[in-house]
């Protein structure tokens, strides 16, 4: 009986670990290989504080959680700039460093002997010294951890996290701070793993470095993959299956060393088999099914505020210059954008149009020159801050969040969300819930404004090309920026669709937005823009009314030449 209860305790601990790992790799798409190290740091911290200082539960566990969360943030630092293989290698390095510290810092960690005789947790005066006595605590903590992870996964914060997984540049372009998001996710995942570590230390009463190796990370990874990345219940299921199944091996008479290795071989084979046969895992990520979105009766206005369309200069780029290696992409560019006016940016391919957008919106730092918005200098400011100050841009290749719903694509872009802040998510959920209702109304109003209201519940990848273009506009409007930079918003569209989009952009201008459009189609420039700027080889060659610019034979020769 005790044996069965012991397995249940282990299932609870592994469920916490699998869920914590899933948040990192499944939800955030951050592939780190240091979960065993986080688990180990939590376990060792608890072991040291409980054994050497005699601190009582839950103090050692909480200390372990905070220390590990801080460690998670340090590891995230190099990963903030570049992901993928670099994150893998950095987290592996952490794994090795952690083991080295456990083995070498003998005075504190006991070296290769580990730490034995860790005191049992006492609750209500009685020690939890048998699986039967420990199980209720393990289950309760596992449930609590799952509830916390669940709350996180259902929050507006998680919407931003998923968006980041789909496209980092786009999520910056709607004003999210991806540095803060990654740090928070790492801290959260590491802290949760440390919860399991703290419980483990005081349950087994013994910790040793060899428990917390890469093999353990792969074992937890197998649980996450088996259950399905991005699905928290999947991780619980994976933990149940992969903890319970190998126990059956115990009934085969094998020497313990061989049995242990056979178990590992089985995990590895299971991992490969799942990836080949059912890569989404047993449960798969829960995706919003196609559904009709219930309409809020008073959806509110699409455009938060109307400003005077008075032609006042809002954005000023002065002497902008940017070089890539030996190539000068933009040089000496002066550009002024005006409130209520639509300015077209034209020029042959490679003229530096998109680079100009990147310089204005902070995606690239100019080598020379300045950018200001309403007289405030923004040179060198991070993209998400520029969006929050009121200038946002779209991308030529759209960069939608294809696996999210149309509604979520817009909601994620709404500014100043309290739900992006984990403090509000956990400690003031009612505020977040109220805000979500209001934001939903606003997002739906914006979708109505561009004519996508009916598609709100669809997944973005199911939209037609024209609808995708509309969604790009809706997402940009949702940022509530006063300055909107559209990179080829109309390219590749049929003429009748163009006619439908023109009024949308005109209405934005009429409501006092400052608009700049990169466009190749001269009919669009003629039909839509108040002024056009002609760029070639990174320089501004002319700025004039579209008719006159297009009629200029010298420019036409350059354009079509």
């Amino acid at each position, binding site marked *: 009986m005790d044996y069965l209860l012991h397995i249940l305790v282990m299932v609870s601990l592994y469920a916490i670990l699998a869920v914590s790992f899933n948040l990192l790799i499944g939800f955030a798409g951050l592939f780190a290989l240091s979960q065993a190290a986080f688990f180990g740091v939590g376990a060792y911290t608890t072991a040291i504080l409980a054994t050497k200082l005699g601190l009582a539960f839950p103090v050692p566990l909480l200390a372990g959680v905070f220390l590990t969360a801080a460690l998670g943030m340090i590891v995230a630092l190099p990963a903030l700039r570049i992901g993928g293989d670099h994150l893998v290698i950095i987290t592996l390095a952490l794994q090795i460093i952690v083991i080295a510290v456990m083995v070498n810092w003998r005075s504190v960690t006991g070296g290769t002997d580990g730490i034995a005789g860790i005191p049992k947790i006492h609750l209500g005066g009685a020690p939890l010294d048998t699986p039967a006595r420990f199980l209720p605590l393990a289950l309760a903590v596992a449930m609590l951890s799952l509830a916390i992870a669940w709350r996180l996964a259902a929050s507006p914060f998680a919407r931003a996290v998923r968006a980041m997984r789909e496209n980092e540049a786009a999520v910056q372009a709607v004003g999210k701070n991806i540095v803060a998001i990654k740090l928070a996710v790492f801290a959260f995942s590491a802290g949760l793993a440390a919860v399991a570590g703290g419980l483990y230390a005081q349950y087994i009463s013994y910790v040793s470095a060899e428990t917390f190796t890469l093999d353990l990370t792969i074992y937890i990874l197998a649980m996450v993959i088996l259950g399905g990345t991005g699905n928290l219940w999947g991780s619980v299921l994976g933990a149940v299956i992969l903890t319970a199944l190998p126990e059956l091996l115990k009934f085969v008479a094998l020497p313990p060393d061989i049995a242990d*290795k056979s178990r590992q071989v089985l995990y590895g084979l299971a991992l490969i088999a799942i990836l080949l046969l059912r890569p989404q895992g047993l449960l798969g990520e829960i995706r919003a099914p196609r559904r009709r979105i219930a309409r809020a009766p008073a959806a509110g206005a699409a455009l938060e505020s109307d400003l005077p369309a008075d032609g006042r200069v809002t954005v000023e780029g002065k002497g902008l210059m940017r070089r890539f290696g030996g190539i000068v992409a933009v040089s000496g560019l002066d550009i002024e954008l005006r409130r209520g006016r639509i300015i077209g940016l034209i020029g042959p391919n490679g003229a530096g149009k998109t680079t100009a957008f990147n310089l204005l919106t902070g995606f690239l730092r100019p080598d020379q020159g300045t950018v200001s918005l309403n007289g405030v200098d923004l040179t060198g400011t991070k993209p998400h801050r520029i969006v929050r100050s009121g200038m946002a841009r779209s991308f030529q290749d759209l960069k939608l969040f294809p696996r999210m719903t149309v509604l979520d694509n817009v909601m994620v872009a709404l500014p100043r969300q309290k739900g992006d802040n984990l403090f509000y998510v956990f400690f003031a959920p009612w505020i977040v819930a109220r805000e979500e209702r209001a934001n939903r109304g606003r997002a739906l109003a914006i979708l109505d404004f561009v004519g996508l209201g009916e598609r709100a519940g669809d997944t973005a990848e199911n939209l037609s090309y024209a609808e995708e273009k509309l969604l790009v506009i809706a997402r940009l409007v949702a940022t509530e920026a006063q300055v909107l930079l559209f990179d080829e918003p109309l390219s590749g569209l049929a003429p009748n669709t163009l006619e439908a989009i023109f009024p949308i952009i005109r209405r934005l201008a009429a409501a006092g937005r400052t608009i700049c459009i990169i466009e190749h189609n001269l009919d669009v420039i003629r039909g839509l823009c108040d002024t056009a700027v002609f760029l070639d080889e990174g320089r501004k060659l002319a700025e004039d009314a579209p008719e006159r610019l297009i009629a200029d034979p010298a420019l036409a020769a350059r354009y079509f030449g």
Partner: protein
Amino acid sequence: MDLVLQLIVNGIINGSHYALLGLGFGVIFGPTRITHFAFGPLYALAAYAVWTAAVPLGLPLPAAAAIGIAAGALFGVTTYRLLYRPFERRQSPSLVVLIASLGLFIVLENAIGIAFGSDTKVIPNFNADVILLGPVVFTSVQAAQVLALITVGSLLALFLKRSDYGKAVMAMTDNPEMARIIGIDTVKVATLAFALGSAIAAVPAMLILLKEGATPYMGFNAVFMGFVAVIIGGIGSLSGAVIGGLTLGLVENLGTWQIPTEWQSTIAFIVLFIVLLFKPRGLFARGAR
């Protein structure tokens, strides 16, 4: 001063080992972009192949070495064809391939343990000569590690620059898409890369077998160091991988001048951490932007 000199020599020796691993890992990683974790246990398997040929079968060392290199290449190609190719065919994301590779890693590592036992396998009756050169001391095996880097590195450079297949490998490293468009058979080139990289890995594997013996777990450190050398050097640059490996060896060893030896690997990884913090694309990344 003599101590520093000795530490530099040790650094070059260990660095040569890491550089060879970086070459092996990098030749595969460059054109295929597969994070080939199973490189580690395959490296271990090559060491066990040499041991099997030399000890139970009693073959002379050069013959055993040849068998080890051939076996290494064969294992590498088999892995590509049976494990990675199916994922490539269904265009799985690179993350999925990486996880599959971790799966194979753990399977092979433990299978080796089951087949050969967990004890250290050594070549009995083999004793390396000690060489005294002025104030520094090293063994013949250590000298062989440096010579192996020079030989393998030169042959590889010659192959990649002169032969058509070598040029195809480089083209695919620069741009797999473009390589496919200009008619390079990318599956064939990837197979070749796996054969080459795995054969290269068999060389340091054999030398480590002579130096320290083989254990089922020797692969983890190997794949990690090879990977780190490639990342420090900059993905796609094989000379970068060599410099990355040598840097790693030198930093590790010079670090022990002031810091106790058991912290050797920790020092190297802290350096790695700092390099990636400030130069995320590595010290010698190819291509602009």
